[in-house]
């Protein structure tokens, strides 16, 4: 375990216990999509597109009082060490489901009855915490698509590595560490919309881990806001952004 955490409390990638990996978000990266985003979260590289609200196919899936949200989390075959079969795995199907359930409470789906909103999350390169990075980017892409929302959704994991509770688990810490807890948070409503745990935590560690993950979500939230501001409230470079210019006045 000392490999993951030095005596001085420095982690395998040089971070301290409460430090996030570098996060970069770009808004409006795909021309055809109604909304899109690109995120780099540590070594994760993920692109997200939103299509909709649009007509539902098959028609019987439509709901009379609200829009249907559909999410697909998918990893490209070359995004991981060993080639991944491109067909959706059981892991990807589960992550697609929990991603949908993490994003749904933030959206005002009642504003778009009898329609569907599709969210496509494609992992180009994966590191630990790709589900959190995907949710974070998807929320930004939904905002870029102009979907009415109550809040953004920011996601970040915390966990236990080398006996300590640490923020934002990377790939090696996920594989070798003792616990991984991905959390998605609605920063203004102060609500948790995703919570999973793999690994053992005492009751006190659980509380500490949850609070640390939420503090990470708040940091991610400010990066999400900055990215959206850069596109929609840029004053220095009028109309200078490349994609999705149609959303501007």
């Amino acid at each position, binding site marked *: 375990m000392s490999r993951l955490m030095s005596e001085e409390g420095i982690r395998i990638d040089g971070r301290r216990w409460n430090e996030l990996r570098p996060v970069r978000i770009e808004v409006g990266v795909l021309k055809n999509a109604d909304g899109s985003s690109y995120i780099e979260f540590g070594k994760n590289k993920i692109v997200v597109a939103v299509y909709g609200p649009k007509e539902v196919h098959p028609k019987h899936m439509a709901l009379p009082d609200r829009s249907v949200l559909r999410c697909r989390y998918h990893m490209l075959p070359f995004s991981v060490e060993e080639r991944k079969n491109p067909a959706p795995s059981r892991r990807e199907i589960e992550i697609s489901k929990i991603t949908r359930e993490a994003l749904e409470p933030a959206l005002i789906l009642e504003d778009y009855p009898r329609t569907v909103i599709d969210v496509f999350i494609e992992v180009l390169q994966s590191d630990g915490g790709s589900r959190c990075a995907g949710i974070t980017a998807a929320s930004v892409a939904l905002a870029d698509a102009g979907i009415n929302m109550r809040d953004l959704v920011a996601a970040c994991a915390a966990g236990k590595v080398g006996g300590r509770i640490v923020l934002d688990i990377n790939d090696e810490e996920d594989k070798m560490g003792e616990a991984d807890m991905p959390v998605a948070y609605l920063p203004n409503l102060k609500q948790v919309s995703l*919570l999973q745990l793999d690994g053992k935590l005492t009751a006190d560690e659980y*509380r500490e881990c949850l609070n640390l993950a939420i503090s990470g979500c708040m940091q991610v939230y400010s990066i999400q806001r900055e990215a959206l501001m850069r596109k929609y409230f840029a004053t220095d470079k009028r109309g200078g952004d490349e994609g999705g210019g149609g959303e501007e006045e």
Partner: protein
Amino acid sequence: MSVKKTTTIVEQLRRAQMSELLAMNKRLDGRGLKDYRELRIETGLIKKANGSALVSLGNTQVIAGIKVEVDEPFPDMPDKGLFICNAEVLPLASPYAEPGPPDEDAIELARVVDRGIRESEMIALDRLVLISGKKVYAVFADVSVLNTDGNLFDATSYAVVAALLTARVPRYDVQDEKLVKSEETIPLPINTIPVSITMAKIGNSIIVDPNAEEEACMDARITMATDEQGRVCAMQKGGSGTFSVDQLNEVASLAISLGSEVRERIRSSVASSTGGGANSIRSMTS
């Protein structure tokens, strides 16, 4: 990408009625908010399986079977045995169940149950190695849901746990790098008994062990597995609602306290329904 279709008007009326009752700390079926339904566990009913259990939690009924084979270990884990957990909702389980490949709900069910057992390290996988790097025991847990009435997560988890606790597997002797099957059978090496507790949030109330009616009205669901030391080993939030931090602290303490209660229930059911089962479990856990 399956999305459940709900009959909105009927459900909204139901939800209103349920919320009113919950405000008075009552539930439609008469239970208190923190009560789980009657739990019955019968083990060893399938002789062809290495271990089996039939569990009913109220009207929810599931059957789990354990099959143990000898297999090669995963290349990155040469000194660990294999544990593979699968779950399906049989077409006979409800008027709405349909045959076909598992949908996202069934996949989530299997993965959440698997996570609780794996992360608690219930089975000592390092003691399932026959020839290091070459031959290990592979433990397959397959669960079929026979009747659905909510909280498939806990019923399925209890069934797998009870079946594993009572499973007997053939002993192998190693002679010149070859495996020789003996007539003797041995129990699986067990470290702890994980217990899954599922709770639902309806309005601002947290209820334990939601039935199908309550699940149809719930905002969100959370499943927590705890081990014998009262540690949380696995969690999964589900449903399109949210929890506050206070609620998450509440559900964690509930999962720990109810978990130890249910653990004793599982222990005593397993002990009473199979002769000698309890002794072998005790000796493995101590």
